[in-house]
């Protein structure tokens, strides 16, 4: 067992983990943060995306011990005082999900994308979400949601998009 100290969604956590524990398993099983989900075995789907020191990572492809001394934000830490994050709100309003399984990862990656580029083009959104797979939506409304969040438009009309599925 190795002792790790990690700040998760604002709270300091000090825990013993086996070195082989994946960050996603630590979050879900040891901390009970089941908002972050596991969608694949190959680190392809992006469903498990969280932020490590403010940058998006696939938490199934990071060891919990590698997060020692660092800060993790999960989908559960995005809202402030019960108020949804603008990207969460935009996903809700643009109907950017069907089954919702990809959504935690999609939202975390979208937040990262907008942190890096506050005014992305449709193409930049599609490439920025390249590492996140969705089996349901065809991506169209996800792109719209990111555009709406970028516009800071709240529930106002969503900018139209031209492309189809990515």
């Amino acid at each position, binding site marked *: 067992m190795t002792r790790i100290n990690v700040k998760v969604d604002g709270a300091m956590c000090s825990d013993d983990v086996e070195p*082989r524990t994946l960050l996603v398993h630590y979050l879900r099983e040891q901390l009970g943060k089941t908002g972050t989900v596991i969608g694949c075995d*190959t680190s*392809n789907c992006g469903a498990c995306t969280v932020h490590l020191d403010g940058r998006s990572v*696939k938490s199934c*492809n990071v*060891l919990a*011990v590698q997060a020692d001394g660092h800060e993790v934000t999960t989908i559960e830490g995005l809202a402030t005082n019960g108020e949804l994050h603008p990207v969460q709100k935009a996903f809700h309003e643009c109907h950017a999900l069907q089954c919702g399984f990809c959504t935690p990862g999609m939202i975390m990656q979208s937040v990262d994308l907008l942190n890096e580029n506050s005014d992305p083009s449709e193409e930049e959104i599609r490439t*920025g979400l390249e*590492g996140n797979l969705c089996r349901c939506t065809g991506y169209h409304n996800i792109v719209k949601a990111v555009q709406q969040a970028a516009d800071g438009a709240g529930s106002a009309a969503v900018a139209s998009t031209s492309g189809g599925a990515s």
Partner: protein
Amino acid sequence: MIPAQFDYVAPSTVEEAVNALVEAGEDAKVLAGGQSLLPVLRMRLNVPSVVVDLCRIESLRGVRDDGDALVIGAMTTHSDVFHDPLVREHATLLTKAVEQLADPQVRHRGTFGGALAHADPAGDLGAPALALGASFVIAGSGGTRTVEADDFFEDLFTTAVQDGEILTEVRIPKYTGWGAHYEKFVRVAHQWPIVAVAAAVRVDGGTIAEARVGLTNMGSTPLRARAVESALVGQSATDEAVRGAAASAAEGTNPPSDLNGDADFRRHLATVLTRRAVLAAAGA
């Protein structure tokens, strides 16, 4: 899937890391960004007894200017290489290749040294590093040694880095003012290339004065397309001239056949992608 059990150490100097590796013998594994190693451990394709994590060795991170070369620390992430102004100015080919490598999440963790040490024949950094004539600094218990690009890649997933050794940094000669392009052929998003071509050219008054071309996934290691390079020199940067030179891109290659395409298809791709890469690099 979770990896089998292993002991974990995260030393803070290269010397301590080398000692930990030597002590553990051939069952030890170096961990960099983990973006290739962790999938391997999770599938239990490899079961190391000790994992030596390089993440606390600060001296292995970052890019520095060293006169006529850039020095890229092995632990510099793909994302940091992409954003680095020195790399963009003096080794644009790397900026272009790293931009297309994997996806943003993988680029935030995966490292320059890790990708090169992993030496996947479909990896996107080998051909650019080879084309640019990189040299690889390797630390072991006997001190450090430098291996030139032509000798670094030995076979599938095999480089000059031996058990008990660590790749510490990669020196890239400066190609200030050269044009560059990485042309990657994939079928679906965020995939490994079926074939890719790395091209850097120096154009002088419309004529190609110097050219360097590397091929990804056209054999068990990255390859230099030397026949193309020499055919390009002295040519004007036009579609017709470049098309002629690119026709020999598959010369001396030994591409794999798999579900994505057979060897003949890859040979064909190499000529087409070489033409595109060189024309884009030349700004034509």
